[in-house]
């Protein structure tokens, strides 16, 4: 393993880690509202280490109380990890088993793009460096959010119930691929909204809506990028 690449990865991810820490702090506050203890949030941060799915799952758990629905929403969001770990799989082969497992665990949206900008030789060590910063940052910031969130009574007056929706809007903005998404995203919104209004469980309605959107996007002609 090459120490220079590990250090470069740790250094380059630092600015992104600040954003992750703020986001993690906000998540910790919200998860504490949903009844998670600081210990539970720490365990979740390390065991799951997939921020958006943790938010989606806690949001669904808070609003529907269903473990299955919450886990389904979170797992659905994590389907993209198949693509993420597939992309880094060749780079990981340069690492020994233990660091390889850790880097596979810690590969996520923030460090994937960064790692792929590096020369192919040394990418595994670079990715490992980013994970050595990101995983502890996420765990520490979510636990800190939980501890401080539990100490502040009546978070509702700060608009906390809208925080998740705002986070989803911000993440959707980051995922906006251009005009090709107008129809799939519009249909997803309409189907989900319609099914929830008809009395469907939100967890089921949102999976049905998202699947409808994906099907329509697959039916669209592929345009040259």
């Amino acid at each position: 393993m090459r120490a220079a690449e590990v250090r470069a990865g740790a250094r380059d991810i630092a600015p992104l880690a600040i954003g992750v820490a703020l986001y993690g702090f906000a998540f910790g506050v919200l998860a504490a509202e949903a009844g998670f203890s600081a210990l539970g949030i720490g365990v979740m941060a390390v065991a799951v280490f997939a921020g958006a799915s943790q938010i989606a799952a806690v949001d669904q758990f808070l609003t529907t109380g269903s473990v299955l629905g919450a886990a389904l929403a979170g797992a659905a969001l994590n389907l993209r990890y198949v693509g993420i770990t597939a992309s880094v799989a060749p780079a990981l082969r340069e690492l020994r088993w233990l660091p390889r497992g850790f880097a596979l665990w810690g590969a996520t949206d923030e460090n994937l793009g960064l790692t792929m900008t590096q020369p192919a030789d040394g990418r595994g060590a670079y990715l490992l460096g980013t994970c050595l910063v990101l995983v502890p940052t996420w765990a520490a910031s979510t636990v800190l959010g939980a501890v401080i969130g539990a100490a502040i009574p009546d978070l509702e007056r700060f608009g906390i119930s809208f925080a998740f929706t705002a986070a989803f809007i911000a993440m959707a903005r980051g995922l906006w691929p251009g005009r090709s998404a107008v129809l799939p995203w519009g249909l997803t919104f309409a189907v989900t909204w319609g099914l929830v209004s008809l009395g469907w469980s939100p967890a089921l309605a949102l999976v049905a809506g998202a699947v409808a959107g994906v099907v329509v996007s697959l039916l669209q002609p592929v345009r040259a990028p």
Partner: protein
Amino acid sequence: MTEAHWLLIAVLAMSTLALRLVGYLFGTAMMRNALAVRALDAFPGCLMVALIAAALARGTTADWLAATVALAAAFLTRNIILTMLLGMTAFVAATTWL
């Protein structure tokens, strides 16, 4: 924290691990299937929109107003923390004055 909370953590952790392993072990073969790649690409965005729609379908006028502000903030700043702060501020303002 109840048993349900721990169960949620366990199920989410196991499903995430499974997906990471599937990508690592079989991803190279899957990525050769153009349709699978497009579906995996399209899914996260659609799911975000579905989560927003599910929240708004159960929401009040304040949620819709705050969502409009958050949408504008997201498009202008592309910053998740700023979007959350502005959206929550709009939500508090709307619930106070409506």
